């Protein structure tokens, strides 16, 4: 067997992705996998991801029957092939997941796994001239000094003093946030918004900066209030 089948839990059911290759090989591989793990698959609702493979109604119908024998309910077929889409529609199979994520190839992980991009943990103070760039979240255990910068695709959390420049949601994600124990950046950017830190009065407090109604705002962090 070449590439193996992958299974993911979604709120709609089990998403099985079938790798590229001949359907003549893939179909028995799928059934064999189900036979080997009957306990896991029994009674499951199955979503089949078959990429651009073209399957006719007869193929899908026979697969559905074969699955039904194993007490597996074929609920949806995700494919970019028009032939398959028509066939699936004829059989009354769903063609997309109920979640807002309409693209079929999107990873939908188990509910016990946290959704999100990868985060990097930086356990040092960033001094002037240092630069951290990461497509996901960035966590800094230390300070960001003036002249240092962090550019992240996701959130930025600073367990220390933020005095340099931080750009969260650099790819345009306006829901990104910046957390810091002392939020006094030379400049703060979230997605396309840019702000500078106003004069601080009193002792620094943990704060979170985010975009609210198109405005970049910073407010005191309160752990008991859900944000």
């Amino acid at each position, binding site marked *: 067997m070449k590439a193996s089948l992958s299974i993911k839990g979604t709120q709609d059911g089990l998403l099985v992705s079938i790798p590229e290759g001949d359907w003549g090989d893939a179909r028995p591989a799928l059934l064999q996998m189900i036979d080997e793990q009957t306990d896991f698959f029994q009674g499951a609702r199955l979503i089949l991801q078959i990429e651009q493979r073209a399957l006719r109604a007869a193929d899908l119908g026979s697969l559905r029957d074969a699955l039904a024998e194993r007490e597996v309910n074929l609920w949806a077929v995700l494919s970019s092939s028009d032939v398959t889409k028509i066939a699936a529609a004829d059989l009354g199979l769903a063609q997309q997941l109920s979640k807002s994520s309409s693209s079929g190839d999107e990873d939908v992980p188990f509910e016990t796994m946290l959704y999100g991009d990868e985060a990097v943990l930086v356990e040092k103070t960033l001094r002037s001239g240092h630069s951290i760039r990461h497509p996901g979240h960035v966590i800094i255990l230390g*300070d960001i000094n003036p002249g240092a910068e962090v550019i992240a695709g996701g959130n930025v959390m600073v367990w220390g003093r933020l005095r340099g420049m931080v750009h969260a949601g650099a790819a345009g994600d306006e829901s990104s946030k910046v957390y810091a124990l002392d939020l006094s950046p030379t400049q703060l950017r979230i997605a396309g918004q840019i702000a500078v830190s106003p004069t601080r009065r009193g002792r620094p407090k943990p704060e979170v900066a985010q975009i609210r109604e198109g405005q970049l705002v910073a407010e005191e962090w309160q752990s008991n209030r859900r944000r």
Partner: protein
Amino acid sequence: MSATIITITSGKGGVGKTTATANLGASLADLGYRVVCIDADIGLRNLDVVMGLENRIVYDLVDVVEGHCKLRQAMIRDKHLQDLFLIPAAQTRDKTAVSPQDMVRITDELRQESDWILIDSPAGIERGFRNAIAPADLVLIITNPEVSAVRDADRIIGLIEAEEKGPGKLILNRVKPEMVRRGDMLATDDILDVLAIDLIGVIPEDEAILIATNRGTAASLDSKSKAGKAYRNVARRLNGEEVPFEILQANDGFFRRISRIMKPGGER
């Protein structure tokens, strides 16, 4: 004997690296140690001028590197202190004439016959700086109480950490206690807050430094000079003594926070 090699650097120019090297060299030699000062600022040498030894130069650092002379021949003895020596930089060459490996090789040779080797680093973060820190056992970062100098010092500390030369120790130079008291100058606490490294000296602003420098003598040998005394204290701290910081205790809270110095440029 196995010398401790100390590089004095700052990033920003004009904050007092050369003066500090000359004064620390004199202070350590005055404590009875054998000290060699090396001017690593090739092409812009001036440690020889500050030490008043310019007219005695025959060979320089580049001559040693290129094998034109023996190391001994390039060592110029100080006018006042028997155990203080200078290896001057070449004025007619540039930084590329010396490599970091050359610096390590030369200082290894010097280690055997001295107690302290002080290297005066050029400003900037390029080749000359790398030459200067390559052999260092300890890096002293010197800064003034102004935002641009502190910013550059922070950058330098980052580079030193990247070279695995430790975080270094800080000398805060040209502090005017009056201005700190009035809140017109960055306070020691605020600077340490940002740089987060150990302080080894606070040098007050002192006319005696300028006078001594122009004369080619070290202010640290002048018992009446406040800055000279501060440099002697740094030397004693390098030597492992516990010496209290006088000026630190004078700062009693009338200072600005760094965060307030960053002017707001708009609304959030």
